[in-house]
């Protein structure tokens, strides 16, 4: 049986609050042993040895929000290229949004994605299925059959279900199967007339604005519905301080609610739209600097459970357009770690808490055994240097799409090795 030993590592395991020098042994694709004293006195026998040279060894990142183009838009991203991109970014598992052509709202398509991903993607791909048929927000999808086929969560991705009645019934039905619902919070009518955050900047640019209240209105509504239905609710991306406050109150009341923030919203604000940069057109919109700071504080306090890449590959024909006509979305798999680490480097959030939001918390949400350095857990691991400086160059991305709002930005954090089930799937050169 193949054995791999990591030595001279700085072990960080959010599950046990461990941050200490030590070693880890992988056997048969699983973590066989781990600990601060492991390999202190003896060299591992019959094993390939990887010397981490003091770099961090932690659980691989688990990204709850990734769009691919397969099936239907393979020129933007395939499962294979998304897998390459994820591996390079230290992401060992991702939940895939059902926004494909055809939409993943049928058990046969869940099966298709799982088979294609197993054959072609280097990392674990967990398909999410549509909450409503065709993502149309009208008729509920076959949540029970889709879950049996392997869908890990139910979401209309970047669409909000406008009808409170339909949202209620979807949540009620999801609760019947203890299924996780991932919601998007933007009042559809308010959002329809805007393209970026509403405020002085949008006004000066002459762009229609989406008010912060568009998010809070839906989150307020949804919290009432969660209370009514008992469904497991995850807000896919929070972007405003106002909505975060609503989530915090709901959590304090004991509702089964969680939320995530995208790495973009941790680092960027509305000013980054600059001169109509369409790569900074994301949904929800980049908000004010105060909102961004509130997101960082949410990561620190744990009100925000997870950090996601919200990786959304777009091609030049959907982005090289006037701002109002351009598609929403930015790639993010290969910048997730450095962008998340900015909360550590610039705001002093502990490294273990940043890693917790990127691994253990999303694993627990999807009820995966990964995301922890525990004996018997899958050997989905990353080795990274959290302080290594780099300038983001999208031309180096493994992703087929290069629409990154971080282009040219100086960031810190470099993945040197990514392992999935005991096999190295990425190694920095």
């Amino acid at each position, binding site marked *: 049986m193949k054995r791999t030993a990591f030595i001279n590592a700085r072990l960080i395991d959010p599950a046990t609050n461990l941050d200490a020098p030590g070693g880890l042994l992988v056997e048969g694709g699983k973590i066989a042993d781990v600990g601060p004293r492991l390999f202190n006195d003896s060299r591992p026998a019959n094993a390939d040895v990887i010397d981490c040279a003091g770099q961090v060894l932690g659980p691989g990142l688990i990204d709850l929000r990734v769009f691919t183009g397969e099936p239907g838009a393979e020129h933007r991203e395939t499962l294979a290229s998304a897998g390459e991109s994820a591996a390079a970014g230290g992401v060992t598992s991702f939940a895939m949004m059902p926004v494909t052509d055809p939409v993943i709202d049928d058990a046969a398509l869940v099966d298709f994605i799982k088979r294609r991903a197993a054959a072609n993607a280097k990392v674990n791909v967990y398909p999410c299925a549509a909450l409503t048929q065709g993502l149309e927000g009208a008729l*509920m999808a076959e949540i029970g059959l889709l879950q049996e086929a392997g869908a890990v969560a139910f979401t209309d991705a970047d669409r909000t279900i406008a009808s409170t009645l339909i949202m209620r019934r979807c949540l009620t039905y999801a609760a*019947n199967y203890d299924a996780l619902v991932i919601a998007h919070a933007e009042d559809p009518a308010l959002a329809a007339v805007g393209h970026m955050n509403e405020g002085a900047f949008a006004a000066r640019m002459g762009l229609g604005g989406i008010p912060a209240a568009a998010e809070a209105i839906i989150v307020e509504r949804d919290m009432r519905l969660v209370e009514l239905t008992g469904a497991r609710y995850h807000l896919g991306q929070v972007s405003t301080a106002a909505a975060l406050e609503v989530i915090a109150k709901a959590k304090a009341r004991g509702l089964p609610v969680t939320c995530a923030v995208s790495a973009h919203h941790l680092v960027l604000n509305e000013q980054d739209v600059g001169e109509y940069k369409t790569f900074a057109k994301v949904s929800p919109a980049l908000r004010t600097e105060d909102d961004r700071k509130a997101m960082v504080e949410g990561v620190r306090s744990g009100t925000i459970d997870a950090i996601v890449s919200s990786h959304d590959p777009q091609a030049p024909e959907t982005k090289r357009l006037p701002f109002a006509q351009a598609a929403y979305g930015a790639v993010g798999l290969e910048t997730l770690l450095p962008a998340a680490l900015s909360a550590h480097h610039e705001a002093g959030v502990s490294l273990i808490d940043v890693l917790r939001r990127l691994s253990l918390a999303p694993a627990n949400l999807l009820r995966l055994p990964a995301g922890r350095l525990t004996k018997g857990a899958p050997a989905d691991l990353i080795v990274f240097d959290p302080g290594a400086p780099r300038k983001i160059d999208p031309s180096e991305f493994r992703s087929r799409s290069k629409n990154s709002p971080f282009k040219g930005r100086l960031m810190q954090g470099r993945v040197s090795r990514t392992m999935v089930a005991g096999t190295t799937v990425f190694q920095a050169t």
Partner: protein
Amino acid sequence: MTGLFARQHLLAIAPLTRQEIESLLDLGAEYVDLNRQVSKKRDTLRGRTLINLFFEPSTRTQSSFELAGKRLGADTMNMSVNQSSLKKGETLIDTATTLNAMRPDIIVIRHQDSGAVALLADKVSCSVVNAGDGAHEHPTQALLDALTIRRRLGKIEGLTVAICGDVLHSRVARSNVHLLTKLGARVRLVAPRTLMPSGAATWGAEVFHDMREGIKGADIVMMLRVQMERMTGAFLPSQREYFHFYGLDREKLALAKPGALVMHPGPMNRGVEIDSAIADDIDRSLIHEQVEMGVAARMAVLDALSRQLPNAERKQ
């Protein structure tokens, strides 16, 4: 025997006592025997007029009442809404008072709105039988179900009955919960959360959302009809998903008590809520027996009510 049931109307099971229910069942049992003879005719309701007033289409309930009335010697008349002047804009109460002026003795009413039958009963001087009002009650269905169970298993006390399906919209479920719990059965309600009314747990029945759990060890599995229009995405995503999780097939039925019996108020959606192999299994399915008991139970109700009519002849 029926001395205990002394009401002008039968509008619901909820207000009845166990003794009243049992007296109706005892009387029903007598009519089952009568209905199996060559001559099924009695003159209990001779000279009486029975009107079947159906605002909602029905085949089996209406014909069952019609036959019950005829076997008891009443003059019966069927009125359904598409023939009546309701189509011409007459109010519900005007229709009732008009009919009342024709001096019927008993009116059997079905209406799509909960409470509508009680509203009409208030406005007429004759007896009224509720043949189903909205999602409220369908008392004669519960009586015929109880009669069916009692004849097959000899008792109701102590049995476990799982009522499965669209509880939210079902008057059959509500009447059965009342009746079966009054008679000492343990009742379980099984439905997906979208088809389970909030507060069902306070009805004296146990609530289940997983059918396998809900029918475990049950003596009787009572399936409810699910209307097709509920299975296109509003309450349920599809028929195939419903059948997969809530349809009664051999595999799920195997979890009930060995030899457990299956009931359905009809009309059935084969392959949606019940597998044909079970519906047609003469060892397990009571579905045809329920139809037979329906006539007898309704004869018992009409007979009992007629004894309370103002000018009734006193019988032994």
